[in-house]
Structure formats: structure tokens, C-alpha cells
């Protein structure tokens, strides 16, 4: 089979969506690990961010991330549209089958993936405008003072609220997304599947808690 044709099949598309999605989750883990240095103070945080943005390899990494985002979005939007046409006439009455049989994995999270994904995209754009392309403060050493920028941004409780809302949205997206990716890869066994689902949900909860903690911590710091 021609690889291009295989990757546009229903299974190949889901494989690509899962692969790009999980890669973005790995990015989130690294991103959170770096961001948590904020707690260690301005020097640690600014030196870390300086070493990151002054590294020439960062451009390649950014291009890679952009490619992951674009592929994930293009594939999911295309698939969403195709799935809508697969049922042109809607049901008059529609119920979830969970009551009939609790084996169903359908959740609010799994039914709102396109919505939570769209909000995440808007958030990422806002996030880049606020931080990456935001005001340029300099430290006494002459490197970018992102610590000061973060302090300034999260001193506004409205922005803290917006940020927490977006973290909740991403939490929902990953609640279904990570374990769904395992299924799309074909990873399944009676022993491992329940463990994969719970591990995926734990990782999701830890990521959301970590990313949610930072704006609250920063706000508390700015108030003091």
C-alpha cells in the first residue's frame, strides 16, 4: 500500500493524530519542568530561559513543534468534518450507552475534543503573544527577564482566571486524548489497558495541577 494513502486512511489518520498529540504532551512535560524553576527564583528561571532561547537549536525545535501542531490540527479538523458527513441524518433521541453497559469510555471530555482543541489553539496563540512576543525586560546581566514578565502578567487576577480556565480545558482534552492515543497505536491488553487509562489520567491531572499552580503562585508572589 502507498504510505501516503495509508496515512490518510481512518486508522492511519488516527495514528498521526495520536503520534503528534503524544509528542505535544511530551513537550508539555518538558515545558512544565522548565516553568517550575520559577519557584526557585529569578536567577534560576532567567538563566534557564536564556540558555533555552539563546541556543541555535531552538529554531529547529520550534519548527518541529509548529509542524506537530499543524499536522494535529489539520488531521483532526479534516476527520471531524468527515465524521459529520458519515451521519447526515441525526437521531431524534440520543442517549449515551453507559447506563446500558458501563464498559463505555465515553465522557464529557471525549465528546468535546474538537471544542477543547479549538480553545487550546486560541490559548496557545494568546500565550505566545503574551510571553514569547510580549514585552522585553532585561536583567542587570543583560539577559531577558522573563521572571519579571511572568510576575507582571499574573499580577492581573483576570489573566490568572483566564489561564486557569484554559488549563481546565487542556485537562479535559488530555483526559481522553492520552489514553485514546494508546488505543490508536493499537496498544491494548486486558492487564495493561486499565493501567494505561489511569496512568494517562494521572499524568493529565499532574500536568494540569502543575500548570495551574504557577499562575496562582505568581499572583500570590505579586500581591506580597
Amino acid at each position, binding site marked *: 500500500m502507498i504510505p501516503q494513502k495509508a496515512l490518510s486512511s481512518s486508522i492511519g489518520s488516527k495514528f498521526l493524530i495520536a503520534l503528534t498529540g503524544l509528542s505535544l504532551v511530551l513537550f508539555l512535560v518538558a515545558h512544565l519542568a522548565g516553568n517550575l524553576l520559577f519557584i526557585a527564583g529569578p536567577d534560576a528561571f532567567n538563566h534557564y530561559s536564556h540558555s533555552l532561547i539563546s541556543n541555535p537549536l531552538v529554531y529547529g525545535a520550534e519548527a518541529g513543534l509548529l509542524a506537530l501542531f499543524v499536522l494535529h490540527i489539520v488531521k483532526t479538523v479534516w476527520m471531524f468534518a468527515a465524521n459529520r458527513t458519515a451521519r447526515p441524518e441525526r437521531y431524534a*433521541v440520543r442517549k449515551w450507552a453507559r447506563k446500558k453497559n458501563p464498559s*463505555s469510555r465515553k465522557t464529557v471530555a471525549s465528546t468535546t475534543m474538537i471544542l477543547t482543541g479549538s480553545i487550546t489553539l486560541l490559548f496557545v496563540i494568546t500565550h505566545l503573544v503574551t510571553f514569547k512576543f510580549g514585552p522585553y525586560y532585561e536583567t542587570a546581566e543583560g539577559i531577558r527577564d522573563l521572571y519579571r514578565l511572568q510576575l507582571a502578567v499574573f499580577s492581573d487576577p483576570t489573566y490568572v482566571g483566564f489561564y486557569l480556565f484554559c488549563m481546565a480545558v487542556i485537562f479535559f482534552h488530555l483526559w481522553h486524548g492520552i489514553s485514546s492515543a494508546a*488505543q490508536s497505536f*493499537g496498544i491494548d491488553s486486558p492487564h495493561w489497558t486499565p493501567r494505561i487509562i489511569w496512568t494517562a489520567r494521572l499524568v493529565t491531572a499532574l500536568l494540569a495541577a502543575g500548570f495551574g499552580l504557577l499562575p496562582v503562585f505568581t499572583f500570590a508572589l505579586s500581591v506580597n
Partner: protein
Amino acid sequence: MTVKLRVWRQTGPGQPGRMVDYVAHNVHPDMSFLEMLDVVNEDLIRKGEDPIAFDSDCREGICGSCGLVIDGIPHGPDKGATTCQVHMRRFTNSETITIEPFRARAFPVLKDLVVDRTAFDRIIAAGGYVSVNVGGAPDANSLPIAKDVADQAMDSAQCIGCGACVAACKNAAAHLFTSAKITHLGLLPQGEAERSRRVIRMVAQMDGEGFGSCSNEGECEAVCPKEIPISNIARMNRDFLRALIR
């Protein structure tokens, strides 16, 4: 007991349809759901009206002919049961029951509650078989198969091709049906020879029929009268990806 029905009526393929209200009197709680519809139809015929068209054959849950969406759930409220195995005692007196056909682009409505499921036949024709020479059956012990593998293949072989998985899926995907066939054949030594070709051809046919994609929600498994798990879909995904790199 008496029940109120809201039934999808459609005169033919491609025709506009609508929900029509009926009242079913003298319904015995021990009647099957289809027997209740038979009684309603007898009444309609007496009145000179067109009876409600619906599929049924064995009426004991093994043929896969029947399939109605009852109050928003394919095959109705009972776990691991087909429409014909649902009894009226599951409903309360004067309850309103909504009955619709399975909805999918690949399952066009022929009349009322009858849909055309030949898309499934074409998926099977694309690769859901084993090519073996006819002749005397070999001795069963000449092909040892581990008990758990044989059990798993039998579990997947239970699929009766009713299409409830498609009806329940928000994307009208046929992944559970196709994967059950692929698993049933692929797990056994007789099916191994065509394993890669089978998965590629059946998936291509499935996509070509206009079914949607799998969102890994498992609503299909929940409504499947044979309770076939979505681990079959994971296996199909695995087989498909494996076939690509071979």
C-alpha cells in the same frame, strides 16, 4: 399495558421521513419488543394503513437482522441483547417509546425502520475470508491452537453483523465490526497467511463505504449484543500498522 410510540416513517429510499405517533393497546409485559410491533402492525393493516416496516428473522438474538434504536440506544436498554430479546416488561405503562432506524450514510434507510446494511457484506467480500482448498477436513489436532487464543477468536466470531456498533458510534464508524472479523480470522493459523492483505483491503473498503473514524469512546462495545470489546479495534490498528511496514 398501553404504550405510546413515536416511530420513524419513511416511504422509500431517499424519501423524506417523519416521526409518527401511535398508541399500542393490549400489550402484554411478556411480549417481545418485536411482538408488540407485530400487534401494532396488525391493527394498522386492519385499518387499511401501511404497516411499520422493520427487519427481523430468528427472533432469538443470533441472526443479526433486527436492529432498532429504542429511546436513543441501539437495541434498547438491555445489556448484551438484540432488539428481539427486549421485552415489554422493561417499559412502564403509558410510557412513550421513540423508535428510529440505525442512522449512517453507509446504512441508507430503505423503508421506515429498515436500513440497507450491504456495506458490511462488501467489507467482508474485500477480505473477510480464508482461502483454503476444499477437500477432507484435516484432523483437528494437526493444528494446535492455544486455548486462550481459540477463546478470543471465538469471542470475536460472535459478531452477528447487526450494525449496532455503527448506530451507536458518534462518527458512524464500522471499526468494531471490521475489527471483530479481522481478529476472528487473524488470530487463527488458517487466517495468518492473508492477515496483512486482509486488514489493508477491509479497512480500505470500510473507509470507502463512508463510515466514520474511531474516537475510542467504546459506545459500540456498550451496545454490542455480543459484547465484543474495543480491544478488537486496537488489534486491527496494530495489524494495519504492522501490515504497512511489512
